[in-house]
């Protein structure tokens, strides 16, 4: 399964970025093989629509699940339309979040857990 974890850095040791649309990187990991790549979030500094842009980028890359801290309404709507599942409440390192996900310890959410523009604070 291909999952994307919002990250402050480029590897599994980096801390999770709790913001979705304005995180610095996405770590795109394959849960079967354990391989991963870092994708710089092109929309991190967008004036608006960052969450939509990020969701579009992940959908284009065939991501099936997102692991993050908080998710706003427009990003959620876009990810749901793409059939991408969202797991929220991640913290610690990207590697730790991925381990928690594999153990089924992260909660699946089906609606936004913060308002629009949360990541701009």
């Amino acid at each position, binding site marked *: 399964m291909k999952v994307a974890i919002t990250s402050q850095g480029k590897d599994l040791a980096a801390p999770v970025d709790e913001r979705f649309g304005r995180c610095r990187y996405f770590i795109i990991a394959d849960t079967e093989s354990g391989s991963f790549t870092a994708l710089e979030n092109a929309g991190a500094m967008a004036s608006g*629509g960052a969450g*939509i842009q990020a969701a579009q980028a992940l959908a284009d890359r065939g991501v099936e699940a997102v692991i993050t801290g908080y998710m706003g309404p427009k990003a959620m709507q876009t990810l749901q339309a793409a059939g991408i599942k969202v797991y929220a409440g991640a913290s610690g390192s990207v590697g730790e979040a991925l381990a928690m996900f594999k153990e089924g310890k992260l909660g699946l959410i089906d609606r936004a857990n913060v308002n629009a523009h949360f990541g701009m604070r």
Partner: protein
Amino acid sequence: MRVAIASGKGGTGKTTIAVNLAKTLAEDGPVRFLDCDVEEPNAHLFLRPTFQERKGVALLVPQIDAEKCTGCGLCSRVCAFHALAVVGGKVITFPELCHGCGGCSLFCPTGAIHEIPKKIGVVENGLAGKISFSHGRLEVGSALVPPLIKAVKKQVHADRIVILDAPPGTSCPVVATVAGCDYCLLVTEPTPFGRHDLDLAVGMARELGIPCGVVLNRAGDGDEIIEDYCAREGLPLLLKIPFDRRYAACYAAGNLLVEEFPSWQEVFKDLWREIERRAGA
């Protein structure tokens, strides 16, 4: 001759200067007044126009014909504001992010996008003596200000004198107001905050290539902070209005300085002559 009254910092006295200048000039001939602060218009409270016309202003936003859409994603790639996303072979739209540029429907290879109007506000036109008055009112819930300001500016026809009351700040709505003007008056106050935001506004006017001059309101205590700034930047300090409780009371009652204190008429006439001289230079 188009003169914008802007400020950077809010609450420095833009509307006070704009309405008193317009009222003074209207003694000698017709004046067009545009209140471009469409999020919170207030000039009508002072000039008290009789409104004769009310026009809805709409932005064209995309609507997708699912039958014709192939999900190619071109619309989402051309949209600079991420108002469309294409996921799972389908387009989803976010009209609240759309700036109405029309790029998506222009580029759609299958003609699956047509544009529908989304109301963003109204323009109201009226008369206050010799002043032709126009302002915009943004629809509650709409966040897109510049297109409505441009609609307000379209009310100008063959007017010789146009006074534009700008919104506060230095962001897109202010740029939309000030762009194309012959002169920009920047109203400030003698405080660090006033100077800081004046500096931002001066930067904006210079970027737009519009000559500007400064009006110092609530003057009398610590004026050097603005005087020194103007001297350093080579900006003309065109007018000072003293900090006076009577002027504050006049404003609070919705009255005009030039009517309650007629000696101010000559001051505003001088201000206008100075603007004309400098805008022509």
